[in-house]
């Protein structure tokens, strides 16, 4: 059983390494970074406590929001999805990404206290 799972995973990793364009890998690295940051914040809350709760919420929401925006950017940039996003060029996607981030961080900084 574990043999087949292991072989599936190694195959997936091989596929990923070979067929994913570099740009997407860059964004994937960024996604991993955001994910880890969020996990570590959550770990702190579980271990030490929720004081101050508003700071935790704002940090965690920031991670979640950034992750979502980055995923959207990745989807829009992926050349394989070009047919779904005919009106959106990669530059436009990136500009939207920046604007959404500005709004997100405005709210996050307001709430972090």
């Amino acid at each position, binding site marked *: 059983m574990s043999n087949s799972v292991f072989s599936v995973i190694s195959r997936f990793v091989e596929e990923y390494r070979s067929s994913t364009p570099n740009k997407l890998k*860059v964004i994937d690295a960024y996604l*991993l970074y955001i994910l880890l940051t969020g996990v*570590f914040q959550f770990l702190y809350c579980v271990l030490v406590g929720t004081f101050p709760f508003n700071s935790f919420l704002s940090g965690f929401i920031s991670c979640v929001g950034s992750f979502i925006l980055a995923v959207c950017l990745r989807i829009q940039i992926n050349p394989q999805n070009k047919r779904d996003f005919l009106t959106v060029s990669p530059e436009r996607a990136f500009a939207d990404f920046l604007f959404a981030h500005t709004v997100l961080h405005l709210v996050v900084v307001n709430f972090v206290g």
Partner: protein
Amino acid sequence: GKNCSCAWLFWWSVLCSASQKATIPVSNDTRDLLLATVSEDSTASQIHQSVSALSALGLPLASQEVVSALKARISKEDNVLAIILALLTASRLSQQAELGDILEEIEDLAARLDDLGGVYLQFEEGLEATALFVSAAYSLSDHVDMEPPLKEDQVIQLVNSIFSKKSWDSLSEAFSVASAAASLSNNHFHVPVIVSAQGPAAVSHSHPFLRLQVTDVLCQPLSSASVLAESASAVSSKSAVLSQALFTLRDGVFELNFMASQPASGYYQFSVAIAGDSRFVANHVELKVKVSTRVAINNMDLSVVDKDQSIGPKTTRVEYPTKAKASFMADGHQNFAMTFQLVDETTGVELTPHQTFVRLHNQKTGQEVVFVAEPDSKNLYKFELDTAERKTEFDSISGTYALYLMVGDATLENPILWNVADVVLKFLDEEAPGTIQAKTLYVPKPEIPHLFREPEKKPPTAVSNTFTALVLSPFLLLLILWFKLGANISNFTLSPSTILFHIGHAATLGLMYVYWTHLNMFQTLKYLAIIGSLTFLAGNRMLAQKAVKRYKKI
């Protein structure tokens, strides 16, 4: 004109008749004037004045005309005062006249009286109207010799109202009250009786007679009356003590030797009836009489009893009012006990007065502790002091306490305060307070400082520093990954829009930091608007250039 002269003639005629001149010469004009006033067009007051003047001056008048004029005025004016004046006028007329209709007005007026709580009966027009009504009703009733339709309760309530004030607002009010008093004490039908005790309604062995004053409303003693105590029963036990006892008249006061029936001390309810005249009204009264007595203390025994009862108690007998010669000692192992009996001095019957207190007074510290002595089923009073149990009352202060017995009651003539003995109490020394403080109840209490909301417990700085480092560590990982992937900035063009965009972007990030530390939302939005629009324009340009480059490549 006519008004003034009528009134003037009325008062003049009253004065003249009061001065008892047999005949007063009156001119024809005067007489005609008075007779002319008797008509439907004059007010009831004017008719009353002219009729009174005519009768005072001894002049003849047509009673029937007066009656019809009065009846007309009553139906026209229909107020209480007018009807009262009509009654007074009718009492001056000839007895042969048809006064039946006017007599009925008494009953109608009585129906108009207001009942206040079942105690008072009066017109809403006030005391004067009520008092005048009473005197008018009785004067007319006497004149026609017919009993007025007033029930006993109504008469009693009218008396309560009329004589409720001790000072009057005006002379006319005082006159009306005096006039009512005169009618009520001197008419053919109803004479209210006033019964009151002379002095306090209390008897004792030294004052065995219960004295009652029985008078009419003018406080004239009714010597012809016979006063009978129908029954007297104790308030507490409801047992009858007396039945059908006659009071004897002495010096205008009715008295009865109640102590001859040997009542026990306490309160008694008397029911007294006054007979002798069929006109008497309110001649049944209830009276509460107190019987006092003197108390004597018997068999006062003081003893110190050992708690484990290994040593028998030694009892000392003390006689009132002496004090025990030796003082008594009680510490934690012994109880101090006191028993006594309270009896009626004359009869020897056991008594249970309201107040039987035992007071212990420490002369040195001024402390005072009071206990209650309770009687048992055989009416023997017992008091026991357990020093260990009662140490809180004494504040554990050992010393000599003077013991007093206090006996008091409303029915006792000789309340007692007796210093019976001295008691030396010993408490455990370690429990005694260092300084003896007076028990102050009304000093300011200790201040309660306000407790501000305590800040929440924060984790130690080391922990939070560790986690800060942990949270920032993925950034390091990101840089490493990007380096490994070969992400670079080789496409970086040095066009002004690119530089401006990056500066603007950096400025936005800086603004976020400054917002966190210093600014509020409004200021931030203001700056963001400026920086943001610059960044947007530059970025737009930059991305457009990039897009063009991409198309060219493809």
